[in-house]
């Protein structure tokens, strides 16, 4: 795989744009012609993790920052996809999220679990007054 792609996206901080960001990720995955796995499955997963990450960032945006665009980057380089989603809020407890159990009928709390399951490396750290959720997927 020799592709090198970098997308730098500013998108309104509204759930109405989840579909657009998800589709961008989907198209990016479908364009990775040398990806040896199931590209349609990869496309679905990238759509999903972008949707979850953006919805999470919207949820955790401080009220004073609501009018500002969300910043998202997608980079394909060295056989690896790296997605960064920046939020402007107080953040959340990333490391202490339980795995869903069938007897747990919570209505929330599955998004980060889904991201951690579908991506190879996930981190969440402070960045420039907010936080960045960084997700990596090895593509070979």
């Amino acid at each position, binding site marked *: 795989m020799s592709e090198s792609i970098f997308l730098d996206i500013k998108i309104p901080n509204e759930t109405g744009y*989840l579909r657009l960001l998800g589709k961008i990720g989907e198209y990016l995955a479908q364009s990775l012609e040398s990806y040896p796995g199931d590209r349609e499955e990869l496309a679905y997963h990238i759509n999903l993790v972008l949707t979850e990450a953006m919805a999470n960032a919207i949820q955790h945006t401080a009220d004073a920052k609501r009018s500002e665009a969300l910043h998202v980057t997608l980079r394909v380089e060295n056989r690896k996809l790296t997605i960064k989603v920046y939020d402007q809020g107080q953040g959340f407890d990333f490391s202490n999220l339980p795995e869903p159990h069938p007897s747990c009928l919570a209505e929330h709390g599955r998004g980060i679990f889904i991201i951690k399951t579908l991506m190879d490396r996930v981190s969440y750290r402070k960045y420039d007054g907010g936080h960045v959720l960084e997700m990596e997927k090895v593509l070979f």
Partner: protein
Amino acid sequence: MLTTIESRDAVTLIQIQEERLDAHNSSDLKGQMLTLFEEGKNNMVVDLQGVRFVDSSGLGALVSGFKNASARNGNLKLCGLQPQVESMFELTRLHRVFEIFPDSTQALDSFQE
């Protein structure tokens, strides 16, 4: 959210006419289900045949409906899951919570048993 809601005997069939069930429209679905519960319609089938994509918020809305139905001595069953949608239920283990049927006929019939 676009849905078609029909009453079949004592069961309400909700067909979701959206390609995506996500954080943008899942609260609409929760609201529509709550209205039905308030009308005393406690047995439901949610038909996901047209849904190609579901995120954790969409799953949360269905869990909310399931809990509300159970609390009212009813049930909420699912049908028509596309393969990628079904994989989300398996990933989050929710396939062990819901009764899931291939199509709405079988889901509706299951309430007669």
